[in-house]
Every structure is written in structure tokens, then in C-alpha cells.
């Protein structure tokens, strides 16, 4: 019993107690470390375990035209997604629902590839599910773990192709875009504007996505849909009010010759606001909503007409005779000529300069013309000499100063700058020093040569002449603060003279076919030489000539001659100014007026029976200028 002597046993008891206490303290410290010190970390991990965030997309801001008509809106749509989980089980679920939602293996791989990029977000199966599929899935919800069906606002463009280039379209944000600061805050799979106004004003249109949480079990099954954690509501995007006149835009789209390529820009010369911007051929921006169909996308890209190209701001054309207005304005500004100045050599169908003969478009010759007449007749011989008189240096200097080398900075993405020499050294580089003569200024003076302008750039020059002589930056959405404008030192009488000369183009010049009875339209045609086929036709006009309210420029590719474009532009102008209702008014007011002449008012418009006035459109209620008969 020696070993169990109380003294010895007490010693062992102390050792045992010490061991118990040390162990207890170690355990308490371990729990203290995990539960008190590491609480935040483990709390987060536990929440990450059980909660799956599901983005609630913010409705994009609506886009309105100037009268409050909707250009882009949101309609309810359904998305079908699966809660994230191991890829294997996701694949199995996809196989199970493949026949229901009509997935092929390629689509399945796309879904999985997208899921791998964002493994903590629901795997989007159908971005825009039709109602039958949604109800079919709902019936089988219990057998499809992790199924999320959500109503999400879906972008819709009621006018489809009509305003496609203007409004653009939306699409899923790309990796590259998310790496830029502008779109860094957009979640993977979020929608951003891809083109047009949607892209330009994406920051305000986009809004802010919300998020809701669902609770899942360890096996990835949804246990609770709501109430697991507070929901963060999305903040809708701000509406966008544009200066577009949707009726005019529609009219342009309707009147634009079918199957032709080209563009039309209409703007208000007194403010620079764009009234309409149309490019043909167009595309359907609705097709991009919820992911573009690969076949449609390939079709757009392989189409040799390049429907995605906005020909108003993304295509350059030799400006041709429309340019002559600019040359005349430069010469007037520098005081080299007046409207009555005649050139030393009258037009005999061409001009011998050095060892070359420069032709006038009219081989019969125009004779001796004043500047006004030369603009009206578009006489090349006159402008050859004016170009020489102005001199290459001045011509390049003024054109550069007037912005014929830079973008107009219209608030639409993707505008390309026009091409124009920056100065005489351009020719040194092109041909070598002293290897070129001032003959280049002959070409430049008539809008040929090393000069290619965008439609919007040319329209801006006509806006300057039609307005108060200040060149305004065109815009679709009124910028905050003043619209940037540059003045070019043309006197009011000089501007008036140029307008009168352009009036003569429509009144008695090359655009004779489109002379309107009720309106005074001023404008300029041009034929841009195209080495690849038939020439392109230009027409830029404005009205009413004495106090312009609208400038419309149009280019139609392969139209042969600008005179073919003029009827389109005059119709657009007449439409905008309410001229078709004026016709009706006149008839109504003056029933004794000579009816057969009415078709001349609006060439191309089917002559109407004077008894059918009650069928005439009544939506042209805007302020119309007083009818003018000449």
C-alpha cells in the first residue's frame, strides 16, 4: 500500500489537476481565438457558405425624343439561371433541362464557359426566355435544384432599325470593358451600351444593379428564397431626353430609297441639336438584347453593305461641290472677293493650268459668272481660279481652323475625323519637297483631292452658314452648360449672300427638280467621284432660306449625282416644316387655287384629290412658318 500513501497520492493528484487545468486553458484559448478574435472572418465564411447573391438588374433609363416619344424602353422579360455549384452538378442539371429549354451542346458549353468566368454568380441559361419555357420549368421546379427564374427588364427599341445607329444597342459587358475605369463597377454579365446613345450615355442610363440573396444548403440546393438577408434594391437608370424628332426620323427611314446605302443628318442650325440621324442600311437593335444570335451577327459582319456602320459619322466621302461653299466663305472672310467678283477667265468648259486641262462639270461652259452665280451653277472653272487666288496656304489654314480635320465631337461614339491635309508640308511628305505644284489647290477648291469629309462635318459647315455664322458642336442630348461654338468672322451680309446663292441652287440651279412652291429651300448638290463605282450623291440644304430652322444633309452612295438626292432632302425639310399640311391649308383656304400645280410643291408626292383633305395627317401641329408662294 506504499504507493497509495496519502502523501504520494496527493502529489499525483496535483499533477493530474494541473494537466486538466492546462488542457482547459488551452482549449478555452483556442475557442477564444476562433470565436472572438476570428469571428469576423468565420462569420463572413459562414455567410458566404449559405448565401448566394443574385443580381437584380437595374432597369435602364428610357430614351425619349424631343416630344416625349419613346425611342428605347424596357419590357418585362424572363431570365432562367442556375445557382452556382460544382461544375459537374451544373452540367448534369443542364443536361436534364436541355430538352425543355432547347439547348444544344454548343450552347451548354457557352453557359459553362461563362459560368467559369464568374463562378459565384448564377449561371445564366436563358437571358430571354419565352413564357412557355418558363411555365414548363416552373412545373418541374422541384426536380431542378438551384433553378432561378427572375423577371428582368428587357431593353426594347419600338422603332427597331429606324433609329438603330442613333440609339445603338446594349450587350453584356466584356472583359476588356471591365478593365477600364468606366465600366469597372459593372458586374460580370451586366449590360452596358454598346453603340450609339446607349454607349455614349451609358453611365447615366445604366443605373445601379441591386442584389438579393437566397439561402442554399451544403449540396447547393436552394432552401430559402427570400428573407435570408436584406435585399439591395436596384437603382433605375436616369431617363435620357434627346433632341431627336422621332416622327422626322421615321419619315426619313420611310422615304430613304429602299436598298440604297447612305445617311441623313438633320439638325437645328440655331442650336446645333440633331433632329434626326439616319444611316442605311440599318440593323435591328432588338436582336442584340439578351445576346445576339451568332448567325445574325455573322450576317451583319459579312454583309458588304456593313449595316453596323453609321454612315453619318463613321464614313468619309469626297465632299465634291458641297465644299465650294466653304471655299467661297473662306475667300469672303479674307476679303479676297465679294459676291459680285468675276474671275479673269470665264468658264469655257475647263481651265488650262500648267500643262494640264482642268475640266468644268459642264463641258459647254458657264461663261463669266459672279461668285453668287458660280455657287449656284457650281462652276468648277470659277472655283479653280478662286482656289488659286486664295492660295494653298490660306485654304489649308482656314479649313484646319474651321475643323475640317477634326471630329465634330457629336455626342455619339465612334465618330471618325475627316481627312484633310494639315498644311503644305503634307504634300511634301506625299510627293516630296518641290515635286508638287499649286495645282493641288485647284483640286482642293472644288472638293476633290486629298479631302474626305464625314456627313456630319459637312452639315456642320452648312449649319454655320444657315445659322448666325457660328459653328456649333452638334448634339443629341443638350450638354450641361453652353454648347461649344466657334465664330469665323463672317459678316451677316456675307452669310445672307451665301444663303441667297444656295437658294439659287434649288430655285434655279442644279437641284431644279425639287423646287418647292411653299418653301424657300437653300442647298447645294454634289457628286463625289468614286473610283470604285458610280459616284456618290450629296445634297445639303436648309430652310426657310431667309431664317433657317433646319439643315438637312444627305449622302446616297452610288447615286450618280447629287440632284438625285435633292428630292429626298427637300421632302424631309418640307415634312419638318409642316409643308404638307400647308398644302392642305392653302387648298382649304384658297379652293380656287390652281390645283394641278400642287404636285410641284412637293415633287414626288402623289397629287392629291382636293376632296381628300380630311385624310391628311393632323400630327403636324408644330409651329409652321407662314406659307410662301413664289
Amino acid at each position: 500500500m506504499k504507493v497509495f500513501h496519502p502523501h504520494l497520492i496527493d502529489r499525483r493528484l496535483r499533477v493530474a489537476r494541473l494537466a486538466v487545468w492546462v488542457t482547459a486553458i488551452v482549449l478555452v484559448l483556442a475557442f477564444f481565438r476562433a470565436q472572438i478574435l476570428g469571428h469576423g472572418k468565420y462569420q463572413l465564411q459562414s455567410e458566404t457558405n449559405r448565401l448566394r447573391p443574385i443580381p437584380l438588374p437595374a432597369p435602364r433609363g428610357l430614351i425619349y425624343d424631343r416630344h416625349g416619344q419613346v425611342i428605347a424602353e424596357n419590357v418585362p422579360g424572363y431570365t432562367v439561371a442556375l445557382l452556382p455549384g460544382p461544375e459537374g452538378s451544373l452540367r448534369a442539371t443542364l443536361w436534364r433541362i436541355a430538352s425543355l429549354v432547347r439547348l444544344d451542346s454548343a450552347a451548354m458549353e457557352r453557359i459553362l464557359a461563362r459560368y467559369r468566368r464568374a463562378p459565384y454568380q448564377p449561371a445564366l441559361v436563358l437571358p430571354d426566355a419565352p413564357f412557355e419555357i418558363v411555365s414548363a420549368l416552373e412545373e418541374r421546379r422541384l426536380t431542378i435544384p438551384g433553378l432561378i427564374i427572375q423577371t428582368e427588364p428587357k431593353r426594347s427599341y419600338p422603332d427597331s432599325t429606324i433609329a438603330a445607329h442613333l440609339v445603338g444597342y446594349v450587350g453584356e459587358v466584356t472583359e476588356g470593358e471591365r478593365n477600364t475605369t468606366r465600366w469597372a463597377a459593372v458586374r460580370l454579365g451586366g449590360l452596358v451600351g454598346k453603340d450609339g446613345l446607349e454607349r455614349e450615355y451609358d453611365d447615366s442610363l445604366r443605373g445601379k444593379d441591386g442584389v438579393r440573396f437566397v439561402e442554399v444548403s451544403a449540396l447547393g440546393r436552394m432552401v430559402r428564397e427570400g428573407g435570408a438577408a436584406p435585399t439591395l434594391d436596384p437603382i433605375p437608370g436616369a431617363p435620357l431626353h434627346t433632341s431627336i424628332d422621332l416622327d422626322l426620323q421615321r419619315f426619313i427611314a420611310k422615304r430613304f430609297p429602299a436598298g440604297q446605302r447612305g445617311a441623313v443628318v438633320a439638325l437645328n442650325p440655331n442650336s446645333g441639336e440633331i433632329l434626326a440621324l439616319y444611316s442605311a442600311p440599318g440593323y435591328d437593335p432588338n436582336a442584340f438584347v439578351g445576346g445576339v444570335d451568332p448567325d445574325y451577327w455573322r450576317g451583319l459582319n459579312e454583309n458588304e453593305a456593313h449595316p453596323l456602320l453609321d454612315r453619318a459619322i463613321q464614313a468619309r466621302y469626297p465632299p465634291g461641290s458641297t465644299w465650294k461653299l466653304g471655299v467661297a466663305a473662306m475667300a469672303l472672310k479674307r476679303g479676297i472677293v465679294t459676291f459680285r467678283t468675276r474671275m479673269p477667265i470665264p468658264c469655257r468648259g475647263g481651265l488650262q493650268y500648267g500643262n494640264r486641262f482642268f475640266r468644268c462639270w459642264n463641258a459647254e461652259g458657264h461663261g463669266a459668272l459672279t461668285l453668287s452665280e458660280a455657287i449656284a451653277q457650281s462652276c468648277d472653272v470659277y472655283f479653280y481660279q478662286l482656289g488659286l487666288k486664295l492660295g494653298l496656304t490660306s485654304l489649308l489654314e482656314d479649313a484646319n481652323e474651321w475643323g475640317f480635320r477634326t471630329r465634330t465631337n457629336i455626342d455619339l461614339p465612334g465618330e471618325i475625323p475627316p481627312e484633310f491635309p494639315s498644311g503644305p508640308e503634307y504634300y511634301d511628305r506625299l510627293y516630296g519637297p518641290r515635286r508638287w505644284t499649286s495645282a493641288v489647290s485647284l483640286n482642293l477648291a472644288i472638293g476633290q483631292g486629298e479631302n474626305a469629309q464625314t456627313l456630319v462635318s459637312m452639315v456642320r459647315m452648312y449649319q454655320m452658314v444657315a445659322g448666325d455664322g457660328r459653328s456649333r458642336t452638334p448634339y443629341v442630348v443638350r450638354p450641361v452648360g453652353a454648347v461649344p461654338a466657334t465664330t469665323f468672322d463672317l459678316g451677316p451680309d456675307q452669310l445672307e449672300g451665301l444663303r441667297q446663292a444656295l437658294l439659287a441652287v434649288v430655285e434655279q440651279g442644279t437641284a431644279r427638280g425639287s423646287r418647292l412652291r411653299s418653301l424657300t429651300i437653300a442647298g447645294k448638290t454634289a457628286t463625289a467621284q468614286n473610283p470604285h463605282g458610280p459616284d456618290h450623291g450629296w445634297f445639303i440644304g436648309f430652310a426657310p432660306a431667309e431664317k433657317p430652322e433646319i439643315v438637312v444633309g444627305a449622302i446616297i452612295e452610288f447615286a450618280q449625282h447629287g440632284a438625285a438626292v435633292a428630292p429626298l432632302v427637300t421632302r424631309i425639310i418640307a415634312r419638318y416644316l409642316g409643308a404638307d399640311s400647308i398644302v392642305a391649308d392653302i387648298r382649304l383656304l384658297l379652293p380656287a387655287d390652281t390645283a394641278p400645280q400642287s404636285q410641284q410643291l412637293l415633287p414626288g408626292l402623289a397629287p392629291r384629290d382636293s376632296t381628300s383633305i380630311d385624310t391628311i395627317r393632323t400630327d403636324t401641329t408644330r409651329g409652321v412658318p407662314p406659307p410662301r408662294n413664289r
Partner: protein
Amino acid sequence: MASRLREIDKPLAGVVVTLAAYGLATLYSAGQTDVPTLVATIWQRQLVWLALGFLCAVVLFRVSPRLLEWATPFGYGIVAFLLFLTLLVGTGAGTAAATKSWLAIGGIRVGQPAELGKIAVILMLARWLAERREPAATLRQLLPACVIAGGPFLLVMLQPDLGSAIVYVAILFTMLFWAGTKPSLLLLLASPAIGLILAFSTVVWGAWIVLLFGLLLLWRPYVWEGLAVMLANVAMGVVALPFWRSLAPYQQNRLLAFLNPEVDPRATGWHVIQSKVAIGSGGLLGKGFTDGTQKRLAFLPAQHTDFIFSVVGEELGFVGVVAGLALFVALVLILCRIARRATDPYSSLCVFGIAGMLFTHILENIGMTVNLLPITGIPLPFFSYGGSFLLTCCLAVGISLRVAWESRQSGYAEL
């Protein structure tokens, strides 16, 4: 009987009843999940086992230590036979389906003899050690004790059930310690196991051999014994690799995951990671009784057995954990006190062996939930679901209560 009840050791009974209630409540909570689970009503079955355990405790409380001492060899023989039988006809269950831990009659699993074996080994060791008049001076004198614990240990190892087997080793060492064996001798006895563990690195193992050699020179045991110890250690270094390879993959993974749970967070490390997340997310006051999300959503594995203490940590927080730990510490310390006051060596050794067994279970089970110790699936007394172990604990409590009563009857006054 009434007088006996009044003379009962109230602290022990109180702590055990509180622990049983706490454990049952936790087990009830463990069944409250958001996903379909088989353990939803398991607390009711545990209640039945508890009632059965109470009866067992009462019966053993009525049994005098002398009768127990007399019956010990028979009990030990029966348990050894059952363990042997288990190896032949045993079945697996639950998370360890591949092992042979269960005895089944007609397809119904009756119990795990390995749990009862713990009590049998404690009693048998107590009987043998109580007969020694002198503390063991040589390793050779410890050999019978090693055989008493080693037999069931080997049988359990062969099931294989590493966790329970380790408990046998712990029982052996705590009882040898209580019997007054010199620490140096205990170290020499443990040295082959230490050598086995340290063999993961040749350098460390070499250092251990050198240290052991120095200790042998210092303590000067018999030459033969010193030689045997050295040889055993060298042999362990040699067999370490084959032994590692002979472990089942889940056993290897458990040890690897203990060293670094992130090795395989989806599979082996999952248990440890999710248990720590459950405990850590509980914070100071916990998520509320039955409201632990890790448990509710089945992120916490084996929440009704091995990781039941994680449920306490998640739902009742640090406060609940400290309360639980305090109860366990009280239990072990009360048992130590009873062992100290026992009337005879046999009773004293029995109670201290019981304290050692419970302490090992508590340390290993709770330590594993916070990744202090590697995962070995051994249950937490009075918390984990499991009839055999609950019965074992109740038997142990019954014996302890009787021993406490005896010492009180014999006039052992308060110190």
C-alpha cells in the same frame, strides 16, 4: 435506498445530470435542419439510451467494489470475446461504413464492444495494479499491464478504429501514473510511439534516438530493457513508412488535413474547415439555440456525433463553449477527488481510470473541432449520439458514485 440517495456524491451527480441535459438539448438542436436529415428525432432515441444508462448506473451503484473486483476478470473475458467476435462478424455504420465496429444481431446493430471494452480494461487494470505492493521499477514489471490494455487495443486497431484504440493507450498511461509508476519509466514505455510519430522526418527521428540514448544512460534501467527500448525505437523508425502506407486512405487524409485543412477543402479538409467556421461564426453569444446556419444547411458534418460541440460553439457562442468546458473540467476534477478519497486502491484506480478515459474523449473530441488535434471519430461524453458510449459513461458514473459513497460511509471526512 433513501439513505443512500442522501449520501450520494451530489457534485458528481449534479454535474453529470447537467451535462446530460446540456448534451440532450444540443442533440435535439443538431436534428433541427433545413435539409432532410435522418437525425431529426435522434434525441428521442438518445433519451431512451439515457434511461437505460440510468438503470445501469443504479445497478452499478448497488454493486459493491468487492463484488466488482471479483467479477472483473469475467467481464474482461466477455468483452475480449465480443471484440474478437466483432472482428469476425462486425459491420460498419455511418461515416465509418468500411470498418467492423459494430455487433449486429439479425441485422440490427446492437452496440460497439470497443466502448464497453474501455470500462473492462479500466477495471482489469485496476485489479491488477491494486495487487502490486510496490510501484513498478522495471519495464518488465509493466508487461502484464501492457498486455491487459494491449489485447483489446490490438483487437480494436484491427477493426480498424484508431480513435478508440488511442483511448486504450491513454487509459493505460493514466492508470500507470496513478499507480505510482515513475515518469521516466512511462516515457520509456511511450518512447516507441513517440519514435513512430517522429519518424516522419529522419533528422528529427535521429535527434530523438540520440536523446533517448542519453536518457537511458542517465536513468540506467536494466541493460536488456534499455536495449529493447532502443531496438523498439529503431524498429519504429524503420516500419514508419510501411505503417503509414498500411493506413486506410481516410486515416492518412485525416492526419494530412490536420496539418493543413486547405490541402483538400472540398473533401477531407471540409470537416475541419466547416467545424471551425461554425464555431468561429458563433462569436460571443452564438446564433441562437437551433439557429446555427452551418448546422441547419448541412455544412457541418456529423453534427450529431463527432462535431456536436461545434453546434454548441455555433449556436451558443463562446459563452456556451466555456460553460460546457467548465462542466467537463468539473467532472474530471470531481472524479480525481473521488479517486483520491477512495477507500481502497482498486476503487481509486477505477475512478482515476474513468477520469482518464473521459478526459481523453473530451480533449480529443473538442480539440478536433477547433483543429487543435487531428480528427479521430471519438464521441463527446453525454453529448454525442451513440448508445454504447453513453452506456459506458453511465456505467462509469455508477461506479464512481459507489466509490464516493463508500468513502463517505467509511467516514472519510471532508479534507
